[in-house]
């Protein structure tokens, strides 16, 4: 049985086709879906804040007592300052950056792992499929938060932002993997798969040549959802006190605001800034993923037009 890609040229060709298809989907969705456009604009603002604006910070906003504490929003401190003497605005831009990094790492690791595992399980079938699915189902049902908390507590001394992304990945692959397998199973009986098998393509060949193009739009939706899931998981861990409390992430900001009873003491700007930012990120990502999934489901596309 042959494996794909057979030569380096083939590999480049497939990569090219994949990229072309990717940008086609992107342009088409951008043109047809308003939800996607709105989501993309909000998300772009967040990226600008997190990546570009954050680098103009005049000081390291994580450090305590660099600015006078407990100041309400003013021209000097646009979003006020915290009890720890941190500037909320600069802290927020750094937090957006770190939270996005965590989301991105999880999306890169977990959703691709889930994608490949799901496709292999579905395409190969038999005993391997059954064992993989029993594992996946158990991971879906295990309550992820207590297990994540346990892991984060045990790794507290060596925790970094990328490691946080990796740990959250442990619980972000099973659900996509299940969905991908279901899609592959529904494709498996189609005639072109039989053609592929008789043409001598192996499991890997069929996975990349036949199944992947069908699953690609769904995979894009899943990528955005995974970013969303990872950012909210980190925030959840932070709220309960097991994130990296000396770092700047959206969750850690909320943690310190709660820890110092910001609302009770009237320092509303401290708590509400990260909360609104998180909501904006979530809604924008959800709109983006909704735009892509409406596009990839022809029945819904028809409904939207009609």
């Amino acid at each position, binding site marked *: 049985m042959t494996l794909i890609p057979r030569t380096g040229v083939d590999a480049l060709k497939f990569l090219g086709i994949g990229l072309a298809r990717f940008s086609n989907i992107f342009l088409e969705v951008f043109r047809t879906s308003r*939800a996607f456009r709105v989501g993309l604009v909000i998300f772009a603002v967040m990226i600008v804040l997190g990546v570009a604006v954050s680098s103009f910070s005049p000081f390291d906003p994580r450090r305590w007592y660099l600015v006078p504490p407990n100041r309400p929003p003013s021209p000097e401190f646009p979003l006020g300052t915290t009890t720890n003497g941190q500037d909320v605005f600069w802290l927020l831009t750094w937090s957006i950056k770190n939270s996005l990094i965590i989301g991105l790492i999880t999306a890169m690791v977990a959703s691709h792992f889930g994608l490949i595992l799901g496709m292999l399980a579905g395409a190969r079938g038999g005993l391997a499929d059954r064992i993989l699915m*029993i*594992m996946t*189902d*158990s*991971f*879906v*049902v*295990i*309550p*992820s*938060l*207590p*297990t994540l*908390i*346990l*892991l984060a*507590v*045990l*790794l507290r001394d060596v925790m970094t932002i990328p490691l946080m992304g990796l740990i959250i990945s442990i619980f972000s692959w099973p659900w996509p993997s299940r969905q991908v397998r279901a899609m592959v199973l529904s494709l498996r009986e189609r005639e072109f798969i039989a053609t592929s098998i008789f043409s001598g393509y192996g499991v890997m060949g069929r996975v990349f040549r036949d199944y992947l193009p069908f699953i690609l739009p769904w995979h894009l939706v899943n990528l955005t959802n995974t970013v*969303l899931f990872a950012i*909210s998981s980190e*925030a*959840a861990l932070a*709220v*309960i*006190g*097991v994130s990296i409390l000396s770092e700047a992430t959206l969750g850690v900001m*909320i943690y310190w605001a*709660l820890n110092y009873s910001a*609302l*009770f003491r009237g320092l*509303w700007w401290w*708590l*509400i800034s990260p*909360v609104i930012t*998180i*909501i904006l990120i*979530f*809604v924008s*990502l*959800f*709109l983006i993923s*909704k735009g892509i999934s409406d596009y990839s489901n022809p029945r819904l596309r028809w*409904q939207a037009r009609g």
Partner: protein
Amino acid sequence: MSKLLIFIASRIVAFVLTVVIGVTVVFIIPRLLPYNPVEAQIGFIYSIGQFYDPTAIESLRQTLYELYGLKGNPVEQYLGVWRRLLTLDLGPSIMSFPTPVATLIGIALPWTLGLLTFSVLISWTLGNVIGTISGFFNHKKFSKLLTGVAVVLYPVPYFILALVLMFTFAFLIPIFPLGGGITIVGVGFSLDLVLNLAKHAALPAISIIIPGALGWWFLSSFTLTSQKKTEDFVRYAELKGLPNGVVLRRYLIRNILMPQTTALGLALGGIFSGALLTEVVYAYPGLGRLLYQAIINNDYNMIMGISLLSILGVSLATLLLDLLYPLIDPTVRYR
């Protein structure tokens, strides 16, 4: 063997597998670490500087070694974890040494269970009813409005919404208290006591009900209904001249409930996690609060106990829900 028996057996097997895999994951984690967590903690207790009964410390050390699965050979270690879990003997808590972990969890559990059962039942029922009705009339204005609300609510996690609600209804418009489970513990049972409990539970409950009812359960039942209502059996019912109410109740809701029950089973873990965090936000005296205190006090024993019990509890709840399934799906009951 009848279909029903096969169904029940397969669900029980799935439950056992989940618990075994979950506990095994918790068993493996501490062994991958480069340092010995048990001695680190014993050192932590000594570093507080108080005098403890040496036999109590020794019993704590034994418990920790067994709970972390670090005592004897690997097989003994693994069986030790299971023995501790099945007899609910989770050893002493470190932050309230030497009160057993099981006792503290026993005090916190009713708060979480009460809050969770009440809110999940309400949000699931409400969400499905509203979602099915809006899906049936999906061109009306109110259903477009509700869908818009759901799109914003759906991706936002419970605890973030809890923070927004707390800001609005305890800070801007102070109707509800900022946190806590109860203010005055009166003597005996009285109306005041019930009202006080309800007032403190209201915001945490609403924080769990709203995102479920108007977000997740609404969106999924809305989508299911809009798809189902284009199917032939529904068209036939409408062409027969049946009133909308009958089509909704006898044709649509029944078909929506089955997938939605399965979805509830799969979502329980997430809802449970959400409830834990909501409790932290409102300082509600349930398991979440206990877990939070355990984390800031480095009480690994308690964290371990709560993690193991959550895996057991959520899987058990999912199993019970699965076993109720034949009551609503007739195709499982008969051959």
